[in-house]
């Protein structure tokens, strides 16, 4: 298996696993005051490898599924995640994304922005503290979990080649 293909397979696996965990443990994650947002994390990891259009399409699909799970926000979740997918992939193109630290920062900033947008689209406007402190903590945890998954799969893929 060549390096490119191996990386694709393992990255795809980690993204699917993160999405699987998100939908499986969703009630637990949403009930906790701070928790990683594996949905946004997996989408941002996918945007590292997908073309902007494909990333937007993935975001749209995930937004529809998330709204069906949440029982509200049909359309708004899709819109938010479509924009996040597209902007994520485009910013990856514009910024040089070759360093591991970049992935962590990319996940942290991306999740923070995404969480803030999703909270603002909700029925109850969040307080500023929830938006800043809660969002930042969630983003940090997301970057830690998803960045860790990305680093682990990347090292496995490199070892296989």
């Amino acid at each position, binding site marked *: 298996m060549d390096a490119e293909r191996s990386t694709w397979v393992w990255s795809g696996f980690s993204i699917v696993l993160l999405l699987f965990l998100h939908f499986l443990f969703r009630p637990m994650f949403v009930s906790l005051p701070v928790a990683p947002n594996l949905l946004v994390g997996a989408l941002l990891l996918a945007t590292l490898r997908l073309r902007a259009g494909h990333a937007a399409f993935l975001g*749209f699909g995930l937004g529809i599924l998330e709204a069906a799970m949440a029982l509200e926000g049909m359309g708004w979740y899709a819109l938010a995640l479509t924009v996040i997918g597209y902007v994520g992939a485009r910013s990856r*193109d514009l910024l040089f994304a070759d360093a591991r630290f970049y992935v962590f920062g990319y996940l942290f900033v991306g999740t923070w922005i995404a969480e803030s947008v999703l909270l603002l689209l909700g029925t*109850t406007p969040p307080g500023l503290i929830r938006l800043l402190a809660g969002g930042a903590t969630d983003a940090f945890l997301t970057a830690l979990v998803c960045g860790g998954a990305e680093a682990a799969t990347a090292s496995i893929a490199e070892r296989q080649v």
Partner: protein
Amino acid sequence: MRYLTVGRPESQRRDLVLAVILAFFSLFLSGLSLESRLAITEVLRSSILAPFIGAQNMFVRSSDLSEQVAALTTEREALAARVLEGADLALENQQLRAITGLPDRRTGEFAVGEVIPGAPEAGVSHSFLFRTRNEVVPVTPAGISSPEGIVGVLRTAHGGSGLGEFWTHPDFRVGVRTPTGSATGILRSFLAAGEETMMLLEGIPFQTDIPAGTLLVTSGIGGVHPPGVPVGFVVEEADSRSGWSHSFLVEPIVRPGQVRVGLVWLVGSVLPSPDSSSD
């Protein structure tokens, strides 16, 4: 490892066009009627998301099964006592109505269903999916209550399930009165100090005082909720005062997180035929 894949300009244009189309489609979805969105939600929940929802339900059921058994046993004992107390009352009511020439007392029927809360926002869940065990189609909006008190309102129904809003939703309103009828008003959700969701009783004439601890029950005005369902207890007079009326802070009896099973009020609703319910 390299992530950098700058596309050619024409690919970038195609990507942008696709993203814009998807964004417009998302806006179209958000503008759909509640019934259409419910239908899409139902299709997704019964197909792609079904394994996840099944696993979550299994986990929830197994984790608080013993708690539920204890609660149901207590509830059953209390209900048995109330049925014994009420047996004489029902007969007495019938006889008195016959004497005074009043028609039979009709309070409507209830259907039992499962309440599945939606995503909490800032710790509070506003929406829920309601699923009846038979194919009952309530006329919406219809009041949802639990044996303890008011839960919320069912906004849309489709094939035995529907989408509803807990009383915590900003649009929720219910007409209430004190048990003696000395005061009536409109109740809505209210974000009290400390971000706690409480209820606010509005429209009480300024000369009417309601002591703390007074129980408020539904007045039945509006036809959404049956009369006499407990809603909450008055805590204190609220700071806000408008014109000739004042408001009271109310502690709700039912919190959204506590409810798993609810009763939907069926006034003028389509009940399943005896043939279909026996299947």
